[in-house]
Structure formats: C-alpha cells, structure tokens
C-alpha cells in the first residue's frame, strides 16, 4: 500500500490489508486534521479495508471531522455497503 497527500486529500493505492497500513493511514490523516476540519480520502485500488481503519474513520466522524471516502473498487463499495458504512463514512463511488 502507498499513500500520498496534497492539501486535505489523501490518496491510497494498493491493498489496505495489514496493521501497518492502518498506522500509516492514521498518521497521514492525523497530520491533515491538525489544520483542517475535513478530509477527502481516495481509495483507488484496494479490494478490502481493515477493521482498525474503519474504527479510526468512525471515530473521526464522531469527533466532528467531515470525511469523504472516494472508492474505486466495486467489491470494496459492496463490502462497505454490507457493513452499513456508506452513509456514516460519506462514501462515494469514483
């Protein structure tokens, strides 16, 4: 998995699978939300997402951070829909 950010947009390529991926995503987003109340996360390739990442994103919403999750893979969209997270995490199909 690789991650990059520009302004308040985080772009993730590769599969989100390992615990270390969650730690990298958290570190990147934590830096952004120090100066911004909103963050747009683009997940361009991943077919899965770890529960730790879901927990972290849910907590951001609870803290009042505006998040948008732009997801490209249909399988991941279906998975997030099955998990009832589309509305909470403001998920959009890319």
């Amino acid at each position, binding site marked *: 998995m690789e991650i990059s950010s520009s302004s308040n947009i985080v772009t993730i390529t590769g599969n989100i699978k390992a*615990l270390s991926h*969650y730690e990298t995503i958290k570190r990147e987003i934590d830096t952004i939300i120090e100066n911004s109340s909103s963050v747009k996360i683009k997940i361009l390739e991943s*077919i*899965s997402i*770890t*529960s*730790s990442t*879901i*927990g*972290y994103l*849910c*907590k951001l919403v*609870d803290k009042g951070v505006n998040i948008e999750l732009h997801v490209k893979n249909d*399988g991941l969209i279906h*998975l997030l*829909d*099955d*998990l*009832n*997270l589309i509305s*909470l995490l403001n998920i959009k199909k890319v």
Partner: protein
Amino acid sequence: MKSYISDIYKTLNILCVEDEKETIQIYKNMFSMMFKEVHCAKNGLEGLERFKENEIDIIITRYKMPKYNGLQMSKKIREIDPSIPIIMVTSLKSIEMLTEAIELHITNFLKRPFTQSSLLTIFNQAVKSIIVDRCIMKEQSQKITYSNYQEGITFAKEKIITKNDLEEEEKLLHFTCNTVYKPKDILSGDSYIIRKINEEEYFIFLVDGMGKGISASVTAMLCSSFINYYVNLQIENKNEFSLHSLLGALLKFIEPNLLEYEVLCAHFLHFNNNTKTIDYAIFSMPPVLYMLNTDEVYKLKSNNTPLAPYTKKFTIDTLHLEKLTKMIMYSDGLNENMVDDSEVSYAQYIKEDFKKANSVKEFEELSTHKIKEQEDDITYILLT
C-alpha cells in the same frame, strides 16, 4: 566455584579419541574419577560412531590418527552438533590445519606432550561453556513450557466463554445448527454464543473484535462473558428475553472498556418461535445469508454501524421465520480469505456455496476447496 564445577563434571560424558593405547589408558585413569562416563575410540571413524551411539558432552581428540583424523571427525560431528566442546591434541600447528580448526569451532588446542594442569585449565573453560549452554537451554525450555501452559489454559478459558447450548443437540427449532470455529491464534478476536432461552426461543451472538491479537480477543471475550451472564439472569429469573434490553445493557457495560478508536462488529439474533420472528441487530458484520422456500439467496445486511464507545443508539429489525429454510452468519475471516490462484476473495463464492450446501460438512468441503490458505480467523454458524 571449583566444587560447583567438579559437580558439573560428574554429570558429563567424555569421548576420548586417541590411537595410542598408553594415552587412552592415561585418559581412562584420569577421567573416570572426574566424569560420569568415559567413552574411548582408537580413530576418527570409531570416534564418530561412539559419538552417535552415546550422549557425549565433551570430546578430546588427537589430530593425527588413521582413518578419519581429528579434524575430519570433528567436521562430521559438527554437522550433528554445532556447539559441543572439542579439544584437539596435536604437536602440529600448520596454518591449514589451524584455519580449518577455526572454521569448525574447535574449542581449544592442547600441545603434546601436555601436563595434567594444562589439561584441567582447558577443560574448565570448556565446561563453563557447557554450563552457559545448559542455562540458556533450561531458560528456553522453561519459556516454552510456560507458553504452552498459558496457551492451553487460555484456550480452555475461551472454550468456557464461547458457549454453545446446542453443541450436542444441534437443534435450533426445526433447524440443524452447526458452528465452525477456526481461530488463527489461541487468542482470537472472534467469539460466539448460542443460547437456548427456552423451548421456543434461541439467541445467537457472533462477534469480531477490531484488529488482531490480544486486544481484540479481550474485547470479544468481555462481550461474550457479559452476554452469557445477562442471558443466564434472564433464564434464572424467568424474565421475558428482550434483545433491546440486552443491547442497552451491553452498551453500558462495554463503553468504558473500549479504546478510543476501538470498534466491535457483531451479529445479534433472537429467534422466537412464538411470534415466528427473528429480531436482529447487525453491527457492521458481513451480511447474514438466508433462503426461504425458493431458490433465491437473500442478504440480511448490517442495520447498524460498528459498536463503539460512543454508540448510543441501535436499530433492531425483524425477519419472519416461517418460510426460512437455511441461514448462515459469519465473521469477515470467511469471506475475505483469498481464493486460490485468483485475485478475488471468497466473498464472490459464498452465496453460491451456501445455496448448494445442505449441511455444514458440504459447506466446509466447498469453502475449503477454494480457500487453501486461511489468512484470518474463520467463524460461521450454519442453520440447515
């Protein structure tokens, strides 16, 4: 210290490899009082055989001997035991021989002719290295024993908490209820409970703690323990079972026990034959699949976001039980495992396999045929 070392000597077996009969006799006289057992060989080949036949702790060998010389024998012995102390007796000190001896980790050299005092000095050094090795091995062995003990007792604990009232009977109303629980580690984030409340009511809980390892397992076990306690209370007091009350109580219980970012995914299903309904609350779990009396497979999707320390509200929906013929609920370890030789997960196949399978055995065969390498904990409960 000296007395301690001499006690250690008496626990060790020595192998003496020497082609001169007189020297062998000197070794026997000297070592039989010091060591537990003295084994002798008259050349390198015989020395190797004695080493293989006996439990040898230390070796003294002459370099120059017929058949295998001391180094050739040591090379073979090192293939079997890389650390046994080997003392080489020689009058030669050629560069080639020394180089090879260093590569073979020969413990020390003894120049012929040698005195008893020089021999003891070298032996004492070798025995100290044996003591260190033994201490390390003892410590490792204790760690392994402790770890095995911990794993055993932890798994026994998990088995108590992961309670299944239908383990033997396997009957949930008119269904056969089977569970497959294949954790990757002793401490798994997956846990489940199947409780018979009375003849007409059953409760199923399947939980998947966030992340992996001990934290996820502790949370899953806490939830399971609490739910068991709560259900027991309801049964003992003959209270009417209410999923709403259970969830309310669980939220209050679990809130102070979760980490800031921790979430919990879980199925809660209350089967009630009196009302012919299943009340369910699903918190970000893979969908429950079910079939009515047609060929169609339906999904019971999550009606709640994950359980978190800040969860205040929840939704309970109802499914009618009357036409239900088959149902499966599972943690994400099942559907997220990758299918062999492909780039897709088992999620693509689960619906099809569920439709085909008429028993847990059939479903297990279909799923394990596709998932050869289990990447995550697998737990599922199948009603057929």
